[in-house]
């Protein structure tokens, strides 16, 4: 029972708690305002001064309340456009920092503990890499240690550490059992999508914008193939189709979204016609806070859980029913040979022939001329592609801004850009020529990390064109290949590495060119992948899989028996932990040997040692037992007394064991007299 109020100066737990919060705030620095971090640091410093007794006055309640008011106002004014969770984290840290300054009661201490756990949980939501998880795990242990210390203030540090570890490792197996076998619930309500951070994809692309392509080295997803891995130039991972063009930006069409919402409401998913051999794989997607997913070509969900959780859109796009706030694993089968000819033709054509009323006049004229030369759709497309190839177009990641009539200035003035520029220009041209076309964004390629797994990073983001050249089937075209084939054949990384005009801050220059760092990177990617696959991606499918393997076919009876078995197992675990009989007694070995021998003697001759010392017991037995036994007892007693009263010249335990054995043997082989 802690006392209701804690001392201030020299209180170890308050100090440790403040250290914990400062470290935690520092670890969350990219998710919190700088001033919140500074406030935490201040609180830590104040606490340090109080702890050392250099400063004897706690900040007044009134002052801290004023500070809270100020900080709250600051938070409201500076948190524009932050999502709810981040605002909550900031608010919690703020409150904790202020509470730390006032920490003087048991209740405050407990409140801080609860908030600390909450903040750790938010850390788990924001970051899920293996390294971060380990870090937060250690922080959690530290927190337990603080809590335990508060309840055993005067025990030694070793005891407290040991006890914390004991509690931790006793709870761990139970938690693992729960994790592996507890039935999983679907989300209880639909979460709103968050603002996407650092992703190579967006629902709107504006090729002429000053904003450069996101060159983040972060992982987007990993795909593990159970069939052979397709070659790189076939790895076009679809994510979004952009069907609306306003002259500058391409975005997801609102009409399309409305139609999809209605279909979803009626629960009418799209069922694509499939043909040819499937490519099967599992995707583990990083959290994007959005619900779009990645898959190759024409893809369908490939497992029971994925079928429940995925939605097949009418524009060959897979989405999840929930935004991805955590790593998410799903199974997909793709049929690259299926013609993409379905869908609502009327809607598709209307949407994909839409062009803005005016703007980009040069392009309109040029397309008009080109179309007259090539009335045939295929010929027109080839001519377009040839144009990119013949003219001095170049691929660059840092094109100049093209703010007015971006397509015009790209096609005729600058003639340099990245995939979005090419895809945008081509799609616009096709639409002007009366061919339904749209931009597909997603990722292209990927880095193999082992024989069946491909890691796709944010810098692999790509945009290409899909058009109905023959009037019925959607076909993919990638104008970027005309300009920078290496982008497709060797992957973005290679292309960027050997491109002469890479920005200095590009993640892939310098350090990563060393083989050693490459190996390291690959290793950490592997580790993270395994972590994702077996822990973060553990879902209903895998749970069913495990149960199926254990039970050899799931039936309700087997399942209930298994559940009962698990409960029994848990009970057995608790018994092992807590029933005293199982505990090692702390009697020294030497004492055990002596007492064992004495017990044998007592039983045989009906003697009672009671509370006699070894010496007294020998005197008492001397004349009541045969001489040989008395002699043995004498030697044992001598050794044992030496051990007990002269520790520095104690005989080895083996000597006592031998003497005890000798005595027992003799007692056994002596008849009662």
């Amino acid at each position, binding site marked *: *029972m802690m006392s209701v109020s804690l001392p201030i100066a020299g209180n170890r737990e308050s100090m440790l708690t403040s250290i914990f919060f400062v470290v935690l705030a520092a670890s969350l620095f990219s998710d919190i305002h700088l001033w919140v971090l500074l406030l935490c640091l201040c609180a830590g410093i104040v606490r340090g001064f109080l702890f050392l007794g250099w400063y004897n006055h706690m900040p007044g309640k009134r002052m801290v309340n004023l500070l809270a008011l100020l900080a709250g106002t600051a938070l409201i004014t500076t948190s524009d456009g932050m999502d709810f969770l981040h605002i909550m984290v900031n608010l919690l840290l703020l409150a904790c920092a202020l509470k730390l300054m006032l920490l003087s009661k048991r209740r405050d201490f407990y409140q801080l503990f609860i908030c600390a756990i909450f903040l*750790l949980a938010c850390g788990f939501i924001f970051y899920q890499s293996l390294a971060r998880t380990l870090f937060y795990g250690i922080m959690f242990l530290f927190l337990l240690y603080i809590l335990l210390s508060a309840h055993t203030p*005067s*025990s030694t540090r070793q005891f407290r550490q040991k006890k914390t570890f004991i509690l931790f490792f006793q*709870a*761990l197996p139970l938690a693992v059992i729960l994790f592996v076998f507890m039935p999983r619930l679907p989300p209880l309500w639909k979460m709103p999508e968050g603002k996407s951070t650092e992703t190579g994809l967006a629902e709107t692309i504006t090729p002429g914008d000053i904003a450069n392509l996101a060159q983040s080295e972060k992982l987007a997803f990993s795909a593990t193939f159970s069939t052979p891995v397709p070659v790189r130039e076939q790895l076009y991972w679809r994510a979004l189709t952009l069907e609306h063009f306003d002259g500058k930006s391409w975005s997801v069409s609102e009409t399309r979204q409305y139609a999809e919402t209605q279909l979803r409401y009626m629960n009418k998913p799209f069922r694509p016609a499939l043909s040819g051999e499937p490519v099967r794989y599992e995707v583990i997607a990083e959290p994007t806070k959005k619900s779009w997913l990645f898959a190759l070509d024409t893809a369908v969900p490939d497992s029971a859980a994925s079928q429940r959780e995925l939605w097949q859109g009418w524009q060959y796009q897979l989405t999840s029913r929930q935004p991805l706030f955590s790593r998410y694993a799903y199974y997909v089968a793709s049929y690259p040979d299926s013609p993409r000819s379905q869908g609502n033709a009327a809607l598709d054509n209307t949407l994909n022939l839409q062009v803005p009323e005016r703007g980009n006049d040069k392009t309109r004229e040029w397309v008009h001329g080109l179309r007259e030369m090539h009335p045939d759709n295929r010929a027109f497309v080839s001519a377009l592609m040839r144009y990119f190839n013949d003219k001095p177009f170049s691929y660059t990641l840092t094109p100049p801004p093209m703010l007015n009539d971006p397509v015009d200035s790209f096609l005729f003035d600058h003639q340099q850009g990245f995939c979005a520029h090419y895809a945008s220009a081509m799609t616009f041209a096709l639409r002007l020529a009366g061919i339904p076309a749209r931009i597909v964004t997603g990722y292209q390629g990927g880095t193999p990390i082992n024989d069946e797994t491909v890691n796709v990073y944010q810098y692999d983001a790509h945009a290409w064109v899909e058009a109905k050249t023959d009037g019925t089937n959607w076909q993919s075209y990638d104008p970027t290949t005309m300009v920078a084939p290496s982008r497709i054949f060797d992957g973005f990384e290679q292309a960027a590495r050997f491109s002469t005009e890479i920005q200095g801050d590009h993640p892939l220059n310098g350090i990563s060119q060393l083989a050693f760092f490459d190996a390291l990177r690959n290793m950490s990617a592997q580790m993270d992948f395994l972590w994702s696959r077996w822990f973060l991606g553990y879902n209903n499918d895998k749970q069913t899989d495990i149960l199926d393997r254990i039970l050899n076919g799931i039936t309700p009876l087997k399942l209930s028996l298994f559940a009962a078995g698990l409960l029994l197992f848990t009970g057995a675990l608790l018994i092992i932990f807590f029933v005293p009989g199982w505990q090692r*007694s702390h009697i020294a070995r030497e004492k055990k040997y002596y007492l064992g021998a004495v017990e044998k003697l007592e039983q045989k001759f009906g003697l009672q040692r009671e509370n006699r010392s070894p010496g007294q017991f020998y005197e008492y037995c001397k004349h009541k037992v045969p001489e040989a036994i008395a002699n043995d007892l004498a030697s044992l007693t001598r050794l044992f007394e030496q051990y007990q009263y002269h520790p520095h010249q104690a005989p080895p335990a083996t000597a006592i064991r031998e003497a005890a054995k000798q005595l027992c043997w003799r007692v056994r082989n002596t008849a009662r007299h």
Partner: protein
Amino acid sequence: MMRKTFGAWSLKWLAKRMPPDTVHQLHHGNIFIFPGTFGWFYLMMTACLFLLAVNYQNNLLLFLCQFLLSLFLITLFTAYKNISGIRLSARELKPVFAGENGFMTVDITAAEGKSLRGLMEIRWYGDIDRSTLDLEQEIKSHHLAIQADKRGIMRLPRVTVTSSFPLGLVKCWTHPDFNQTLLVYPQKKPEHADLSQWYARSGNGKQVQNGTDDFFALQPWQSGEPLNRVAWKRVAKGGDRVNKIFTDQQPVSGYLDIRQLRTDTETALSVLSWQVTQLSATGTQFGLKLDNLVIQPGCGQQHKQACLKALALFRQDTPS
């Protein structure tokens, strides 16, 4: 009203479950165990985290929740194991005067082969005042103060002993009744005793009284007499122990009689209480008459205690 009824009922139930005894060994029959306030908040927090984990479909968070839950279960057992086997025993209480505080000392001893861990909170059953005892310090006993306000024999209430080791999530407590009584003497009210009238009536001459003022004589020492009057110089020289006798200029002994005091009984008892202590301090011989109860004149500690006890129990219905 409800609370009163419930309180009475629970005390009755406790009396059946934990009969009074000076020594209590804690075991599953007398330990209560339940989440404390912090424990409930902790569980609520775990539930909130579970909601977050399910909605964000976050396995890490889910595992954290399950770990927190398992930890709770483990602490439940650890807490119980920590205090089971502990022996609580109470020492006899010294009598006090009404208005003073009586102290009951509770000793805490660990079970065989275990060491005491954590903090323990001890208070009277239903009392708000609580004090914390650190079981890992040297002293493993605790003095519980109780206000004695009425003369007579006071039956001490139950004691509540609480521990929330290891993490404060669950509380283990017990309400032992140590079967102790506290003898409360009447409050002292100063009023000088005039013993001369009794002397005049009883016709005894002036007696030598053991006092403190003047040296009077040496007497052979008898066991039980205070050592501070032994003539140690003689003992050091190899002589026998001899008591130095001092005298006071004292009136002769007589009886203190309750009927002589013209006040109500309680005030009279208070006055007598003060007089008994005064006279004992000066070493005067005196007797005590309370209605039919007569205590022959004497002096010394035991005599004083007998008198005070008689005063405390005067016309009390409770059996002593």
